[in-house]
């Protein structure tokens, strides 16, 4: 049996132009990596239909150890208070190699 270890998976859905700012804070708050998917959607701020690339969303995924989650969440909350539209949710996941997610991008 392969041993599995708990981690948190942070998900953020927002407009594509937020990408640089989010990536910056992942570097700053010690994430070991992130993944970005192109998305469309609808929510409180209306339709983001990705029509001709004019209104695309991104879906961002970050696996972090639980103890590093809240610093990132707080930085997201600050952005939300400034008026940015971020749809955020967290999932419990299990990983095979917890050390991988403990090594910040900056120490690569």
């Amino acid at each position, binding site marked *: 049996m392969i041993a599995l270890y708990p981690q948190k998976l942070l998900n953020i859905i927002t407009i594509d132009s*937020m990408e*640089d700012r989010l990536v910056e804070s992942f570097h700053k708050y010690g994430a070991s990596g992130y993944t970005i998917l192109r998305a469309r959607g609808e929510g409180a701020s*209306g339709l983001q239909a990705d*029509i*001709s*690339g*004019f209104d695309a969303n991104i879906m961002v995924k970050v696996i972090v150890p639980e103890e590093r989650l809240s610093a990132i969440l707080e930085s997201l909350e600050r952005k939300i*208070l*400034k*008026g940015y539209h971020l749809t955020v949710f967290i999932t419990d996941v299990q990983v095979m190699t917890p050390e991988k997610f403990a090594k910040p991008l900056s120490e690569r």
Partner: protein
Amino acid sequence: MSSLSNLLLPAVLFFALGVIARLIKSDLRFPPDLAKVLSIYLLMSIGLHGGYELAKADLMTAFSSIIWALILGFSLPIIGYLFLVFTRKVNPLDAAAISAHYGSVSAGTFLMAIAYLDNAAVKYETYPLIMLAVMESPAIVVGLLLAAKARQSLAAHEITSQLPPSSTLPANDQDKQQFGSLMREAFTNGSVVVLIGSMIIGAVSSPASMGKLFPFIDEIFMGVLCLFLFDMGMVAARRIGDFRQVGLLLCAFGILMPLVGGVVGACVGIYILDFSVGGATLVAVLGASASYIAVPPAMRLAIPEANPSFYLTLSLGITFPFNVVFGIPLYHALVQAMAN
């Protein structure tokens, strides 16, 4: 008559077809990345062409074109802002975000104007092309400054209770850093890089090597423009539907403001830069058009408190179609009248 012949240009008709396709809820969808490719091609083509011409240009005129492009880019948003704040239909932050769009320009509208002038066999100078490149970004700066002012006055008038506190704090280090990065983004904007880069390449390349490029940049140009406007018609139509949310008075601004910009541009083109009718029409179009590529994402980041459906509906859903269909022949007629 001039207006009618404009309405029967294939490029305008394809724009209309795009609008109609959305209104009848057709399942027609252009791939999301197509508009980007087409606009890179279009900017590259007019850039190469313009640069090739500009190699023979008068440096003095080029220089004053740039200065006046900057003046237009800085002053038009301020006019718009004062007007919007005066009507009290939107809050100051929305006013800042909206008016920034009108200081910048729409390459699609400019290209349509070139197609219009070509079709009417009207000659024009190449300087407006430099102005197109120059005007893309300054309005973003003005938008940021207006927003900073708006945030201060909101804080002063203590009507800030609806807004979260952090947004009214005095600019701190992080904000300055953000301002810096927004500035950099404004001036290294993709469209600007393609346009200015292509102009330089067009200017320094040998005529022989440019000759090999002409079939690509000339012959299929009009067809690609039609395809681009077809696509943009669908983009615009997606926003037309939101006009109810925006309100009638604000929609009126979306038609009034390009008229103001068009008149100011026409004056600059004729009386100050001393361009021909064709060239001055292009300057009028620069004044009249509102950005829908560079400015909206910049405003999303810089003024997140503003409501995007206001400025997107105005610039994409109202001003853009108005200019493409009615504005261009109007500014042309205006310039003709003023030139006589």
